[in-house]
């Protein structure tokens, strides 16, 4: 099957989605990230491997955390970084995505970090650039957010060591969540035997069971005996309308509080991709509890993004 992420030698040339990555490739990225994590702990948090390369953050949709962690990651690899908030520039003047990208290629950029509100945008760009250009999908519509999936896998491995005995619950707006999709694919590839999705019917995609997950509408049943709880952000724009009644109602039925957390294993970890809505999907005390690994996720995200960039540039050659 044609996989646009791989070059003719089977090496990773772009990172567009978790689907299509082998278990070995994911493990290689996680192992490499482990080495980069140590660099973040040093006084000089920089290595020279991307010296002279230019990384371009092209965000057609706003994001602070993802863009910042990609920027820090690229700078720690000694690359030059350009941030383009396309949402407020040429696109509003009528330029097409490809014209925007081709202009940046003419400026000799090497890696593009792309976020777009349309699913498939990164694939589209990757299929139109020369092989020495690398595209990293930093989130496309409801489709995929592969570096988030990888950093979540890294986080789980850090705290749980092995994937093959875990029960993982993903809670919240699965329907609109590219994070949930990337995580489900990553956990399946890594051999997690039980993945649960917990959400109201209105926030679940049709036939989600086909991805190999168990569906729960009752959070108390769904959290029973799990090792990992991945909370998803409830986007405020979903709140008014047919999908959800109100923030209070959602928190009451699907919010993670201490009583519900106690239904999971004693050493269960709580994850969240950020930004959190305290008091909507997660109780403040739980977010700050000892079981929460939400801030380590951010730190790990930098190491994982460094690993992805280094591997893309390194393997192309």
């Amino acid at each position, binding site marked *: 099957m044609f996989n646009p992420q791989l070059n003719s030698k089977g090496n990773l040339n772009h990172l567009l989605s978790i689907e299509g990555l082998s278990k070995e490739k994911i493990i290689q990225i996680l192992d490499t990230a482990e080495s980069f994590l*140590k660099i973040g702990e040093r*006084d000089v948090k920089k*290595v020279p491997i991307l010296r002279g390369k230019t990384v371009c953050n092209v965000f057609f949709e706003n994001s602070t955390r993802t863009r910042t962690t990609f920027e820090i990651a690229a700078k720690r690899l000694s690359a030059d970084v350009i941030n383009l908030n396309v949402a407020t520039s040429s696109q509003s003047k009528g330029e097409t995505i490809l014209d925007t990208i081709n202009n940046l290629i003419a400026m000799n950029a090497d890696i593009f970090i792309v976020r777009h509100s349309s699913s498939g945008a990164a694939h589209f760009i990757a299929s139109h650039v020369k092989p020495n250009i690398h595209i990293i999908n930093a989130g496309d519509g409801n489709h995929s957010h592969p570096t988030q999936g990888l950093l979540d896998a890294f986080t789980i491995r850090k705290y749980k060591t092995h994937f093959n005995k875990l029960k993982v619950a993903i809670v919240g707006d699965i329907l609109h969540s590219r994070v949930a999709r990337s995580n489900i694919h990553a956990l399946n590839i890594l051999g997690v035997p039980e993945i649960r999705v917990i959400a109201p019917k209105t926030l679940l995609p049709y036939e989600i069971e086909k991805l190999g997950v168990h569906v729960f509408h009752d959070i108390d049943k769904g959290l029973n005996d799990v090792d990992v709880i991945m909370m998803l952000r409830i986007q405020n724009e979903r709140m008014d309308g047919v999908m959800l009644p109100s923030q209070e109602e959602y928190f009451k039925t699907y919010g993670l509080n201490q009583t519900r957390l106690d239904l999971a294993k004693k050493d269960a970890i709580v994850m969240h991709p950020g930004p959190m809505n305290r008091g909507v999907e997660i109780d403040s005390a739980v977010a700050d509890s000892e079981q929460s690994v939400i801030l380590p996720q951010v730190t790990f995200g930098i190491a994982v993004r460094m690993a992805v960039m280094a591997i893309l540039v*390194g*393997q192309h050659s």
Partner: protein
Amino acid sequence: MTLPNAENLIETLKNKINDLIDDKTVLVGVQRGGELILQKILPSLKNNVATGSIDTSFYRDDFSSRGLKVKNKPSKIDTEINDKHIILIDDVFSTGRTVRAAMNEIFDYGRPAKITLAVLIDRNEQELPISPQIYIEKISLNKNQHLELKLDENKKFIFQLKESLV
């Protein structure tokens, strides 16, 4: 050809290193060979010498042609190295490029007063103005021949000669 007895070379290297150790010494093994040697000799060295381990993957000058090959453990130097005497240990010295990469990385941890390079074998293939202050044996090999330090089934160190196609 007969390869040198690795255990004997390590024993000799250990004695030479022991003579140099004082309270300012930090021993740093270059992965994997140098790190293996360091772990082997550490129990019989002078007490409480500080140690570290370097994986040069992120500092190599051939990254753009060879790509990223991380198979080792992350680099780790937990002790302060400013104004210390670092003894950098490796199994085989050939071009000097690995040592250059290791030194670049060491300087990202701090500014040592001195770095001494100690190896078992010098292959006489220097490509940079870097050479080991301590070596136990000099050997000339073909470019396509690689010496690898390994543990055999009796847990004894041996050298293995491998030939690549290039």
